[in-house]
Every structure is written in C-alpha cells, then in structure tokens.
C-alpha cells in the first residue's frame, strides 16, 4: 500500500505545514513516510507545493508524477495538478477562492469554503487546518486521531494555539461530512 498526496497553493496559505502535519500523522500511525517540498524556481514565483508519500513499505521514488490525491488551495494549483490525479482519488478544492471545478468525473471532488469557516471560528489563519481535516476525513489516508495528535505535536512549542487548531480539525471534519 502506498498513498501520495499533492498539496499546492501560494506562499502564506500554510501549504508546507499541511503536508508536514499529515507526514507527522503518518509517522504516528507507523507508516513509512516522506515529505518533499518544491524548492525550485517556481517557488520564487510565489507558489508553494509539497508532496507527502506514505506507505507500509520503505518509500521508493520520492518524485510523484501522478498522485492519488490533491489538495488545491488556489486556482492555478487546481488547474495545474487536477489532470495528474489518479482516478478514484480525492481532489480537495478551496471553494473560498476557486470558483471552478476540477473538470474530473472520475475523482471524488470535495469543495469546502475554508476561509469563511475559519473566519466563523475566529481565526482566518486556521483555514489550512480546516482544509487538511476535511481532506483527511474524506480520504482517510490516516486515522483522524493520528491527525489530532500530529497537530498537538506540531504546535507543541506554541501550546496556546492547540485548542484553536483542534477546533479547526472538527470544523473541517464536519464540513467534509456535510458535503
């Protein structure tokens, strides 16, 4: 078993952090896992991509051309990566700022207005955590409890942010269930 998740958006949306929290959750679950950032010239253009590969065997190629799932945080990312997702995968769409769909009929497209939900929660910065939670709840790439633990681990040095982010996880999970 191997699963690959492509995260993509622009700088400042917390794309790298989403991937790192998922990778942490995968490690907690005992999976082999690798997190690969894009650090090349495209990053200088303001985009932010990372890939998380997890599996029950040592991860071979860390370069993934056709991921199983996609988390698209802005429109250029959706347009760039939606065609690469393997049939049957989940495509998460940041519905707050992406007015279009993936154009795919062979995937499970999940649209969540994460910015509005984060604003309702009281902190717009939690939008990425809501997105991650919705994606994990739908795709089940890791257990939700592992994701909660990963959030606690990742924010251990800023413990006052943990309750907010755990709430954001709940908001995301409910959003995925309600669509």
């Amino acid at each position, binding site marked *: 078993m191997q699963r690959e998740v492509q995260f993509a958006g622009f700088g400042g949306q917390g794309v790298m952090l989403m991937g790192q929290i998922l990778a942490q959750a995968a*490690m907690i679950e005992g999976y082999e896992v690798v997190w690969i*950032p894009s*650090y090349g010239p495209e990053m200088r253009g303001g985009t932010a991509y990372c890939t998380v590969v997890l599996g029950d065997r040592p991860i*071979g*190629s*860390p370069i993934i051309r056709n991921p199983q799932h996609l988390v698209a945080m802005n429109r250029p990312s959706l347009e760039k990566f939606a065609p690469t997702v393997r049939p049957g995968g989940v495509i998460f769409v940041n519905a707050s700022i992406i007015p279009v769909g993936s154009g795919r009929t062979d995937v499970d497209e999940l649209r969540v207005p994460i910015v509005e939900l984060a604003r309702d929660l009281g902190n717009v910065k939690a939008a990425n955590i809501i997105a991650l939670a919705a994606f994990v709840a739908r795709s089940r790439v890791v257990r939700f409890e592992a994701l909660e633990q990963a959030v606690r681990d990742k924010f251990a040095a800023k413990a006052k942010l943990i309750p907010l982010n755990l709430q954001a996880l709940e908001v995301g999970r409910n959003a995925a269930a309600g669509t």
Partner: protein
Amino acid sequence: MAKVLMKGNEAIAEAAVRAGCRNYFAYPITPQSEVAEYLSRRLPEVGGVFLQGESEVAVSYMIFGAAATGERVFTTSSSPGISLMSEGISYIAAAELPCVFVNIMRGGPGLGGILPSQADYFQAVKGGGHGDYRLLVLAPASVQEAVEMMMEAFPLAEKYRNPVMILGDGLIGQMMEPVEFRDDLNTEPAPADDWATSGMDRRGRDRRNLIRTLYLVPSELNAHNLKLKAKYDRMRREEVRWENYAVDPSIRLLLVSYGTMSRVCRTAIDRLREEGLAVGMVRPKTLFPFPREAVLAAARQGEVRAVLSVEMSMGQLVEDVEWSVRGVRPVFWFGKCGGEVPTPEEVMAEARRILRESE
C-alpha cells in the same frame, strides 16, 4: 528513542552534534543552507562554535586549521561551493587531517541550478582538487542513512586521518523523513596527540608535531604519496559498502544507482517485476571505495544481458560501472541532469528497451 520527522539538512546538522562535533564553519548556498541555520542556534547550546566564513575558500582553510588541532570539525556546501573548497580539500588530504565535508549537490556546471543533481560524482570520487588524493565518499539514499553516515563519518575520518565526504543530492537535504538518532553507533574520538598541533603543554610531551604539505625532495614526496596510497588501498579493503536490491539468479538486467536515484530505481524494479521482467540493482553506499567486486558478481549472474547505470549526471557513475564489469557484459547509461529527476516510468522504458535490444 522515538522517531522524529526531520528535514535532511537539519538531520545532518543534528547528527554531527550527536557525534560530538562542536565546530562548524560554512558559507550559505541553496539547497543546504538549513544546516547553517540549524547549527547557528544549536551549537551554542552545547558549547560549540558556528562561524560563517567570508567565502568557501576561507571556510576550507578554517576547517584545515581546526582539524590540525585534533578537533572534530565539518562543513556543508553545494556544488559551486565545493569547487571553491577543493584547493583546501587537496591540502587537507595532503596534511592527513580528519574532517568531514558534506556536498548537497545541485545542477551544474557553473552556477547551474538549485535542484537535485549527482553531477559532482567525478569531483567527489576522482578528486576535485589537485594531486593524488582520495576522499572516502559516502552516499546516503534516505534521511536516516544520512544521519548514520554523518555520525560514522567522524570516526572514519579519524581512522584514516583523511577527509570524508557525504555526497547527497538536493532532495536528500530538502525532504523530510522520520529519523532515529541511534545511540549504539561508536562515535568515540580517536587519540590525536601523536600528530595534532594542539600545544606541547596540553599534550604533556616534549616532541613537537608538525603539519605540512610541502615536500621539495622528490624521494620524500614519493614516499608521502606511497603512504597515502597505502591508506586508500586500506579503504578499498575495509570500507566498501553497498546494498543489493532484488539481485537473484533470475535477473536479466542489472541496474547500478546511488542516492535518491536508487530509490526511483527501486520503484521501477518493483513495477518491472510485476510485469515479469527480472531486474535487480546494486546500490553503492561508498562511492570511493567503489563496490567493484559486488557489481561484477551481480553482473555475472547467469541470465544478465546488460548492466545499466542510472544517474543524475551525464555519464559519470557509468565509468566506474564499466571498470567494475570489465567487459563481461555490455554497459549502458541513462540519466538526466539539471534538476530533472528521472521518473520510475522513464527508467522502466529504458530497461525494457535495453532488454529488447539485447535479446
């Protein structure tokens, strides 16, 4: 201890601290600047020293100076930076000083690019600086292996009184994987009093130690080179490391690949085997000394039709593969450069093509 998720560059930095190294001098360059960032905070916590040199040339002689006192010291850089350090590396090898250089390779030549590459194979293995010297070159394929190699590099450097190089590509530095800092690795420093210029008072001896690289008398320089050669020959006997992947008597094609590229090959091999094509791989973990006999033994398996070197360089590793295979089988090259990492699909297509044409 529990596993932690770490970026390769940070894990390499922490591994050096765990190995007891307290001296790190460097000059920043993508894709390895996180090592300096990490150590600028971490080393002061443990009473160590981080200094940024004014250039890579300066850094290489800061390493020379610190190593000459018998202190553990290392630096990290990337391709163009290692070129600048190469003069110093030659001097350090000549002076027989233990230290560690880490090259997180990016695409070249010249300034090239910042994405992963393996184009510094010749520079690392055949000598980037002048004169007859060798580095002991370790090539990690994962963050965990980078950590272990980093910790072992210091005792190895001291065993041979020779610089050790960790040769990784940009991905090894940039990606995050779970790592465990093992405490069962022997990182005990070797005694340096017989040679280090650490002060006669401190050593409590009445004989001065002299470190030099100038030998104007030809017979003396020849003797010095013979001594160095004996050391490199001992590395060839005692330090060769490799891993066989899916090498069995049924294989028809043998791949040779190292670092991140070998992981892509592993995926390609798994999928080719699902198609019924028996392919195996020898992955060198030391590039010098090269696992020549292991490559030859695998190439000699009864069904092997050809050997394929897969590398992120334009035909460098393949020269050592040809030298190892000694004409027993035809040897081919496949690679990409400039930051494009060949995909499993591309490796599979090349493997199929070679097998088809060698039937």
